């Protein structure tokens, strides 16, 4: 097992495209879950409508710069549709409806009925040429040793982490304001917030729509990097990557999603490398029954266990304050 190579690959993943994309996506989810207490189990649906909104716009002859607001608008409308029937009810109803909507949307864009627009199971490709044409970075490799990225990746990463920075500033403005304080009050106790004259339903709807729009941006960013949207990429698992990241970094903290995403993708890639090495290269008796295709599922099972562990023992994140944690154990 080449531990150095595994560590370097993990390090690349920690600042790579998925890390940037999920930092952005998790910033949206953090507004919903961390600041407002909403259980949006269909965050992937917002990523999907963002990506498809943009891809379809380009496919129909529009510019990608028109596609971006279209994708955001689609996410805002989705937030309205999902939030309206559920946000007056207990927290679990939103979870039920959003997780269902995520799956239904995936099936819908996959269907032959929507195929004229979405191209069904084949998806839409090469809609981001306009973005890559703008790349000012000369052809070449940038970095040291194995830790190198080509000019295309650097350009994409530049976009990704800039979006993360912008979204963080946006959230900083919002959450440090009286608006953000009202959101946190709702997270703590809806009835108390109502008794103080806060329009709880309106705030929750806003949180769902704004967080969803940020999720849509993340979906667009991932799609731009891959130059591809395909329905089968938008599985429910993606929502829970974001959940794990938010909880890792500390829900309701400004930099939590960024820190969480970097740690998450480092661990994800590291585990992948180590497990592949153990199962494929090494001759360990009880692992003989497994082969390389089992690495993915085992990692997802570990990921589920990690989410459980975090939620039970570290609900305030890896670096959450003890004091806050004690209060939370109500």
């Amino acid at each position: 097992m080449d531990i150095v190579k595994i560590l370097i690959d993990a390090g690349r993943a920690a600042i790579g495209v998925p890390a940037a994309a999920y930092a952005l996506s998790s910033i949206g989810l953090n507004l919903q879950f961390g600041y407002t207490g909403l259980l949006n189990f269909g965050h992937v649906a917002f990523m999907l409508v963002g990506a498809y909104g943009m891809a379809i716009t380009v496919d129909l002859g529009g510019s990608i710069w028109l596609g971006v607001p279209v994708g955001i608008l689609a996410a805002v409308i989705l937030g309205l549709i999902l939030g309206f029937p559920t946000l007056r009810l207990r927290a679990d109803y939103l979870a039920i409806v959003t997780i269902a909507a995520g799956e239904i949307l995936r099936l819908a864009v996959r269907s032959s009925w929507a195929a004229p627009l979405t191209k069904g199971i084949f998806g839409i490709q090469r809609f981001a040429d306009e973005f890559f044409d703008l790349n000012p970075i000369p052809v070449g490799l940038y970095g040291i040793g194995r830790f190198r990225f080509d000019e295309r990746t650097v350009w994409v990463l530049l976009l990704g982490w800039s979006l993360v920075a912008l979204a963080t500033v946006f959230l900083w403005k919002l959450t440090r304001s009286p608006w953000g304080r009202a959101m946190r009050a709702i997270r703590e106790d809806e009835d108390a917030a109502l008794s103080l004259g806060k329009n709880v339903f309106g705030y929750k709807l806003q949180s769902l729509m704004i967080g969803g729009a940020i999720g849509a941006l993340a979906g667009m960013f991932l799609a731009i990097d891959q130059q591809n949207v395909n329905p089968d990429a938008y599985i429910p698992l993606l929502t829970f990557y974001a959940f794990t990241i938010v909880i890792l970094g500390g829900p309701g903290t400004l930099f939590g999603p960024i820190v969480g995403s970097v740690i998450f993708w480092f661990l994800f890639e590291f585990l992948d490398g180590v497990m592949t090495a153990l199962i494929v290269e090494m001759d360990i008796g009880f692992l003989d029954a497994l082969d390389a295709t089992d690495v993915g599922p085992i990692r997802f099972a570990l990921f589920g266990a990690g989410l459980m562990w975090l939620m039970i023992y570290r609900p305030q994140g890896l670096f959450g304050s003890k004091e806050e944690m004690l209060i939370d154990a109500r």
Partner: protein
Amino acid sequence: MLDKHPTLANVAPEPGVGKPNPILEADGLKRFFGGLHAVDLEHLEVERGTITSLIGPNGAGKTTLFNLLTGFDRPDAGEWHLNGGPLVGIPSFRIARSGMVRTFQLTRSLARLTVMENMMVATKDHVGESFWGALFGRWRHIEAANEKIALASLERFGLDHMKDEYAGSLSGGQRKLLEMARALMVAPDVIMLDEPMAGVNPALTQSLLHHITNLRDDGKTVIFIEHDMDVVQEISDWVVVMAQGKLIAEGPPEHIASNATVIDAYLGRHHGEVP
């Protein structure tokens, strides 16, 4: 002993009696849970600027009545008015903004907000509380002004030294005080307290009573649910008695204390339950 409120001196102690200057009026309020009549009220008026206690045995419908009046529950029939304005179908947060604020039987401090944030979040008509206002509005001077008011109020309730602590780290009694102080930040005309003395030690009870009479002296109308007859006797201007959802008596405290119906409904029930 405190002076009884002068305007109520000539009001007859009968259930549903009219008052000279009511701030709150309710008519035909009904709420059923299955077959149970949780609240079934013919008529009730609450006099402006007084302390009105709401008493009655367990399950009499006192908290349900609070929930109905503040929009936390919907009545099956009936209407009610605050300052002459109808409140039927108005959501609870608007009722709070229109001047009637409640507290809860189990305190609801916003645990992971600081004491000061608990106070500040209660201010109303704040431009910084809207999405666009938060991003582009000028709200810092409003915050500064509100902070002064909040600090003065915290001083009055003896919580100013805790202002930067998480509300979740306060003691039970301190949370009761904070909840009352916070409700006042909404600048209500009517403040409704659901068992403010429950689970509070005797020393703090005196201080709470003092705060409640102060509220009235500031011109607020106070309605509160209480079990302890001594407390009720001490500070109420008027007492309203409920049993099985109905209004069975109302009047000045000394009248209620000697009222046979009340003793039957209230004490009789309790005596029956003692093994």
